């Protein structure tokens, strides 16, 4: 009678638990990184849908006439707005932050690889360098957010509030929603910083920084798209 083994136990010596600082019970670094990246890719889909939806509303609303109650005629109520020049500077700041973020990602990834290579007994990988690139990204991200707020103040000073005209409504909507999403990235950078301070494993830190970096790049790309929409489709 044939016997069949259809399962494997984790106690089996042929199965490596891996040792990348992940701790017992966790999948290895490559699996965790792949899973985190896949999760991020999936998570970005609804963010994309949100802005696709706003864009479609933008295009539809732009073309709609409205009834003037005084003349009883259909008129356009979409007033094109000259965007504050500050937004261009903010764009430069965000792109620069994205560059620093990418440098940080590569740096941390290298450290994770080093830690993996030096995980033999007697070799410590705990003495990690601090990560100035991450700090720079964080600072530039905060500068960008402050710049966006300053641009809002400029708009208001010119008499364009959120309900003044549909075009101003969309400027506040798109910049505001993007800023909220970028704050999520800032929060993730804080998490990465805390992970660094708490001496979490290089693998964990690397994964946090890696997915934050891709998210950050996506936010930068999204901002350039929003700026083009507001500038060229108004």
């Amino acid at each position, binding site marked *: 009678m044939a016997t069949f083994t259809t399962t494997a136990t984790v106690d089996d010596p042929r199965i490596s*638990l891996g040792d990348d600082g992940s701790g017992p019970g966790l999948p290895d670094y490559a699996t965790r990184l792949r899973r985190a990246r*896949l999760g991020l890719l999936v998570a970005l889909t609804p963010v994309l849908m949100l802005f696709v*939806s706003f864009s479609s509303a933008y295009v*539809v609303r732009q073309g709609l006439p409205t009834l003037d109650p005084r003349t009883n005629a259909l008129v356009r109520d979409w007033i094109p707005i000259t965007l504050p020049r500050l937004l261009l500077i903010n764009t430069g700041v965000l792109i620069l932050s994205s560059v620093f973020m990418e440098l940080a990602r590569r740096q941390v990834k290298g450290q994770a690889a080093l830690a993996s290579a030096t995980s033999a007994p007697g070799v410590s990988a705990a003495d990690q360098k601090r990560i100035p690139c991450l700090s720079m990204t964080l600072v530039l991200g905060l500068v960008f957010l402050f710049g966006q707020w300053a641009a809002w103040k400029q708009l208001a000073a010119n008499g364009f509030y959120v309900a003044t005209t549909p075009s101003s409504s969309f400027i506040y909507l798109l910049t505001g929603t993007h800023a909220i999403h970028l704050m999520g990235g800032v929060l993730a950078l804080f998490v990465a910083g805390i992970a660094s301070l708490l001496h979490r494993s290089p693998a964990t830190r690397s994964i946090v920084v890696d997915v934050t970096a891709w998210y950050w790049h996506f936010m930068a790309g999204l901002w350039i798209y929003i700026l083009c929409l507001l500038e060229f489709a108004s």
Partner: protein
Amino acid sequence: MATHDFAAQETHAHAAPQGFIRKWVFSLDHKVIGLQYYFLALAAVFVGMFLSLLMRIHLVAPTAVLPFLGDIKPETYLMLVTMHGTIMVFFVLTTAPQGGFGNYFLPIQIGAPDMAFPVLNMLSFWTTFLGFIVMLAAFFVAGGAPLHGWTGYAPLSALQSAGPGEGLGADLWIISIAIFCIGALMGALNFITTTLDMRAKGMTMMRMPLTVWAWFVTAILGLLAFGVLLSAGILLLMDRNLGTSFFVPLVTINGQLTGHKGGSPLLWQHLFWFFGHPEVYIAILPAMGMCSQLLSVFSRKPIFGYKAMVYAILAIGFLGFMVWGHHMFMSGMSPYTAFAFSIMTMGIGVPSAIKTFNWLGTLMRGRIRFTSPMLFAIGFVSLFVSGGISGPFLAQPVLDIQLHDTYFVPGHFHLIMGVASIFGIFAATYYWFPKMFGRMMNESMARWHFWFSFIGTYAIFMPMHYLGMAGMPRRYSQMTEVAYLFHLIPLQKFITYAAFVTIAGQLIFVVNLFWSMFKGKKASDNPWEATTLEWTTATPPPHDNFGGHTPVVHNGPYEYNVPGAPRDYVMQTDPEIKPAH
């Protein structure tokens, strides 16, 4: 010959929790989270049913004074309509099949120890729970709950002064749905990542049970649809509270200009229905998956046309995003646009028919075991056909214009989206209860429950089609004084009586559910002699699902009645079946 296969190591990412709070409240275990979703939906369904009973009483006795509640005013009736629809669609039909059963069984059925992101999974439940609390809070604020219907059509929903309930109650309604969207998106993220990245060795996509396919495609639909609903909700909140005019045109209330101008109510409808139609499939696809699973198990036959079923699920999901305009034939859209939406809508009939005929093909010449889960699965097919067959009627603009604002439409969508999905939930409950709680549900009570529900459902919703064809308009609160509808009052009364009896029948289910948890007959690990992975593990499953083991899959999910096999089913983990020569 012995087969030795070893899976890539994949153990549980978090230790078994100790203590009540970590184990049962803020649990990271997908099984506990699944149960939390299930019981949230159970609570929500009773709120929704209670509201529907009030509506039914009001429709036949509009001047009745109810104990504790007093008389129901027309605006209160609209509030009941709104909250019944919203709670049922979001917190029952979206929550139980996907959040409940999907969470519990998707990881086990693919051989994973948990969801990909357990913390996110916990957050998704508590976000949904918060959404439900905010939704209920709308009942208790000044003005009460909103009256703009579950579809929230602007400008009624966009103006605070449009009526009672359109103040803070409507804001809470929108915020609740926004919170729900975020919770649902977190859930969808987990479902997709887990399915793509955590399948056991040998669990290829084409060996996944159809339940997993259904949950997977449903998650994709949610991922694409809820973001759009969220965007519409944000715009609506801005119109209501910041004075913008995305959805509100130049409009007066009691002769006074509102200050809005230029917005488009149709824009709301487009955004809402871009979400709203896929939402129908978000509710029904998991039930289709469960039905496919159960028909195969209890017919003791492989599912008829597995690949066709998979492609049909994908086609339904894809086409679901192409047909939102059929909800808007009354909006004055171009006949050419309406024609396009009409054709696409009727196109969905093709994959739906493939599924239906495959279900019938599975039943044909099967050695059918008429257990309670099987009864509900067959009931699902019946309701799906009965409710679905009126779909092609409504898909034609010329017919829809006649029928759209009548009872024909509630009859249609309650059968196909509401009760068919609920039957899927019942079938899944009876089927998986032994695995979840280690005991069997009482079969006699289950059968009584089935017949009450099956006959009751038809008694309630079939007459609504006739009411609609006879011209009874929906959404109006007091139609008993309208002369041309006098002859329809007896039918309305019949529906109300049927609703009372059917809802009373649901108490049998509740008693059975809780009684069986503690007093039911002890269940074996595989009481239904089924083949999928959840039946290879202990009952109830251990914290890491497979007790430190990782299953290795060799077979498809529906290997029943295999020639030459020692028994009439071959588990997915059994040695690979060789084709007969």
